[in-house]
């Protein structure tokens, strides 16, 4: 874990209301593992006050990217940040995706800006010799952020403007009909309602599901105890999303215990 002031090397709008920030940190890039996140100060003053937690979207050499929607004051400030300015970043944080155990194919299912952890995960799994497919859903084609680097991607849009008309669960169903479910693990990130629908579907099909959660945090390092999720298994009632998560086997948590972020 590092706290660094790192230079912004790229700031770009990549889809409707979707932005990417890229910055340079050799140390954080070297230490980062897929599923981990960064806690970033939106202002060098204290307004807005808290850091914002973002999944590591992609790592190339000493560059890291985050991807985000502009939803409030903090993200608006990130969108206005210029190349060459510095950001105060704490990371890499959190427990990475659980990649141990038997699987040789991975389907990465994203809803909207839930695409955040997937390119980094996909690149990592390919290097490990796994087969990787992406299933990426959004309301409409204009909200899909793919610069061509997303591996083996299928799209789902609510209005049918790109790819499959419908949601990612329907598209995953189609994928399984085409490709089968042998040796498969699903990794998912997106709105909690989407994750819950996926959870029901994967349980029905007997496919293991790992989810990456979004929730409001303060410190991001386990000291404020502000981001609990209720556990379905084990002795503890809650664990902290920032340190024990944000990546969980879906069956280990009670996702309904977390209120929706927006």
């Amino acid at each position: 874990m590092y706290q660094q002031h790192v230079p912004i090397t790229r700031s770009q709008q990549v889809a409707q209301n979707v932005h990417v920030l890229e910055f340079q940190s050799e140390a954080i890039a070297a230490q980062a593992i897929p599923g981990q996140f960064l806690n970033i100060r939106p202002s060098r003053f204290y307004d807005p006050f808290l850091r914002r937690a973002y999944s590591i979207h992609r790592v190339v050499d000493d560059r890291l990217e985050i991807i985000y929607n502009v939803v409030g004051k903090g993200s608006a400030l990130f969108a206005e940040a210029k190349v060459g300015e510095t950001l105060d970043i704490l990371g890499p944080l959190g427990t990475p995706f659980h990649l141990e155990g038997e699987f040789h194919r991975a389907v990465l299912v994203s809803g909207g800006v839930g695409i955040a952890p997937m390119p980094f995960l996909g690149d990592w799994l390919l290097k490990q010799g796994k087969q990787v497919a992406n299933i990426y859903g959004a309301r409409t084609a204009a909200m899909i952020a793919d610069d061509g680097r997303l591996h083996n991607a299928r799209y789902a849009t609510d209005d049918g403007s790109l790819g499959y008309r419908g949601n990612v669960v329907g598209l995953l169903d189609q994928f399984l009909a085409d490709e089968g479910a042998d040796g498969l693990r699903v990794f998912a990130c997106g709105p909690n309602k989407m994750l819950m629908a996926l959870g029901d579907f994967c349980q029905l099909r007997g496919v293991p599901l790992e989810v990456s959660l979004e929730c409001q945090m303060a410190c991001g390092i386990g000291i404020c105890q502000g981001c609990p999720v209720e556990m379905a298994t084990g002795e503890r009632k809650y664990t902290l999303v920032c340190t024990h998560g944000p990546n969980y086997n879906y069956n280990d948590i009670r996702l309904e215990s977390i209120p929706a972020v927006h």
Partner: protein
Amino acid sequence: MTELQIRNARFKNPVLTASGTFGYGLECPDLFDVSRLGGVVTKSISRKPRDGNPPQRIAETSSGGMLNSIGLANVGVDVFLDQKLPALIERKATVIVNIAASSVEEYCYVLERCEEHEGIDGYEINVSCPNVKDGGLSFGTDCPAVAQITRELRSRTDRFLSMKLTPNVTSIGEFARACEAEGADAVSCVNTFIGMDIDVGTRRPKIATITGGYSGPAILPMALAKVYEVRKAVKIPIIGIGGIMTAQDAIKFLVVGASLIQLGTVLFVDPMAATTVVKGIEEYMQQNGFSQINDLIGALDVTMQPSLVAAGWS
């Protein structure tokens, strides 16, 4: 130059971490050497482990602060003493154990368990948590109860003992006087202010318990006024707490009369703040000719402006 001793507790500088804002002092070893702090005040420790409140536990406010309703989640005194305390001692921290309870007996039990262990420099007693159903504020707003807890604990320890007070009372000075009368070595002022926020889209509260503890830079002027009130009420040392972000903020509390200060919510944003605040206080003392921290403590100048005296404000 910044060293201070209260009873048998030695603080190498006046900067402590506030309870509940720095875990058990062990969470960020990569970032921070806890031996450089004046002291670590632990998360509130209770007799049994506590799960804490359901989510949502925190919310940022638009006014430079945050609401929390953690609900005293902690590992319980047994695990604390077995696992956390030895690691803190190994890191050469000055250790102040914060204790929370829902009965006088429970406060005494936890303190007595701690008394069996070396390496604890003192206690801070949480009689002011706004986020639990039993204990907490129901004690903290009841002056005879605060006096009784102080008396019972004082009779059980020779270690440094500070009572952490709530600002959510009409007269905090009265509570401080009760603590002083029953033998407390210090009072910690203040715990969070009760606050509330709602989402107008859903018309729901932003935190699960509806109201919670309000902290951050927004509360500094209110906290400073409470410390000023307590300073006028008692002679015992005050630990100033409330919205301190910078060395300048910390100095304000010292000048008003706090002997020590605690950094709280700022640590969620800047875990390194303690280092910069310690350094900033030292620089201020050098630049302003203070050779001892004691000379800075209470150096407030409230000499009335002649124009105010003329206007009848004397």
